[in-house]
């Protein structure tokens, strides 16, 4: 199992990470709004994360830290 950490305040809710994830681990938090006014990404199925870092690879704002 891998661990994901997000700098949620810097997230712009673009969703590129959500699409990049092969295991459908991520989703934009529709019930949350960060300081920038975006729905930040969150892990909704972290147990399925394989630590491939595809999400971080596609994140334009470098907000995702991946540990394995």
């Amino acid at each position, binding site marked *: 199992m*891998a661990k994901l950490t997000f700098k949620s*305040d*810097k997230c*712009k*809710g*673009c*969703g*590129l990470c959500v*699409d*990049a994830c092969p295991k459908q681990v991520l989703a934009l938090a529709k019930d949350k709004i960060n300081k*920038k006014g*975006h729905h930040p990404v969150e892990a909704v199925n972290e147990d399925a994360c394989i*630590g491939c*870092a*595809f999400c*971080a*690879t*596609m*994140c*334009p*704002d*470098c907000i*995702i*830290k*991946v*540990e*394995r």
Partner: protein
Amino acid sequence: MVVFDKPHSLADVPLHYCPGCTHGIVHRLVAEVIDELGVEGKTVGIAPVGCSVMAYDYFNCDMIEAAHGRAPAVATGVKRALPDNIVFTYQGDGDLASIGMAETVHAAARNENITIIFINNAIYGMTGGQMAPTSLPNQVTQTSPYGRDVNHCGFPIKVCEMLSQIDGAEYLERVAVNNVKNVKAAKKAIKKAFQNQVEGKGFSLVEVISSCPTNWGMTPQKALEWIDEKMIPYYPLGVYKDRSAKGEE
């Protein structure tokens, strides 16, 4: 074990780019390469005019803000004064292929030992979506509202193909950052473009096909698809010149 984190040479500040803009990905790739080559302390970066004008705030190495299109000339000055430092420019399509075309071509002709990261997103982003020298035929922009009419305003410029005719150019590659596989390939190319400079091989330019969701009027996801559907067919990815690999030295 940390598999992925922000590279050291990328500043820990929010980027001003629009949601889903791939400038941020390319910034990170450049920073990762600077980290991996261990050259942050001796790197001087040169920012353009355009969306990435404030790149000088986003890299932790020393930075210079150049006039529009003049980054290769500024880089020439820096590199001639500091030949042991690593000098890179980060430029958009309007900056590099329109107003700064002469500086680009002649830096290549001189085989300046610099690295150029060229963002081609086929539009002027900072000023709100006008036609770029790389806008596609029939592409609708603010200044080509009926689509780019090549009979009226000419054809897009294919920078890698054009520069491949310059004897001085060492390494030219076009990459894209619209999916994980392409991003990884883009990083490899950027690393080679910096490594070439470390080894004194000379002018190395990586053209990065990028997205501009805001001014293309698309979602970030759709913009990445548009790169596959429209941009890459017009701007094929690949190595356009690699003089050392061909043994042309």
